[in-house]
């Protein structure tokens, strides 16, 4: 499936170089397809008894992964930005 996803993505990327793509934004097609996709995901969870019974742990683990991922990203972003700014300042001082 992954290879199809990549193939389709890069096909779109290449074809888009030669055709007008304004209609995508105009009709909000990405949003429409995402809504369809997420509806089917909900449908899959709802129709699957085993999955539905686990909805509490799905949301809890999802929340924890989001929280930890966000905290980690922010800390790393904060530190690298400070270090980068410091380097820039040092370079500036030398000049």
């Amino acid at each position, binding site marked *: 499936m992954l290879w199809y996803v990549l193939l*389709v993505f890069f096909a*779109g990327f290449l074809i888009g170089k030669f055709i007008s793509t304004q209609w995508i934004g105009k009709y909000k097609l990405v949003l429409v397809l995402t809504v369809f996709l*997420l*509806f089917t995901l909900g449908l899959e969870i709802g129709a699957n008894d085993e999955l539905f019974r686990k909805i509490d742990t799905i949301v809890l683990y999802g929340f*924890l992964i*989001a929280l930890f991922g966000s905290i*980690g990203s922010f800390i790393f972003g904060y530190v*690298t930005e400070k270090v*980068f700014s410091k380097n820039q300042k040092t370079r500036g001082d030398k000049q």
Partner: protein
Amino acid sequence: MSAVILLSSVVIGLIVGRITKIELPGNSVAFILYALVFLVGLDLSKEKIEKRFIKDILLVIFSTIVGTLSFAFILSFFVPLKKLEVLAAASGFGWYSLSSILISASYSAYLGSISFFANVIRELIAIVIAPFGLKKSKHGTISVAGATSMDTLLGLIATYSDRETALVSFGHGFIVSILVPFTVNFFLNLLKT
């Protein structure tokens, strides 16, 4: 606003699925995903990333990947999931539609669903922290937004920061979006071996 619409579509799907117990034909979800990814590819084809921002963009991408995965790894010691499962779910970096479907199709619907909520909630966290997060750290806030820093969060980031930050945000989201299928698949392959 779009986050509310997207979350509602899952909830409505959940209710309809619960009532009707309907099962979709095997390939239907995959075809919607391909159509979506094709459109995203088309949409991105006209964009250009300015060279002078590349250093900043690479720095934020590094923060997004290393920050997310290192903290997800720490979390994996405290939840009853395999370490690689936590890493796979986290490596959607905010692109919930792609990561959840990829994981559901090639590993498990349970982990795919966790990945969906993890990445939706990540986007919501980014929306909530953006106004004050950008004052503390622009790179940090863009990093939290992950793949959504080029679409949903771009408007917010542009509003609460400056043009340069918005351009870094776009470039970061663009490259992270391309990386998502690779990172998710990387962990899924490790899980299968």
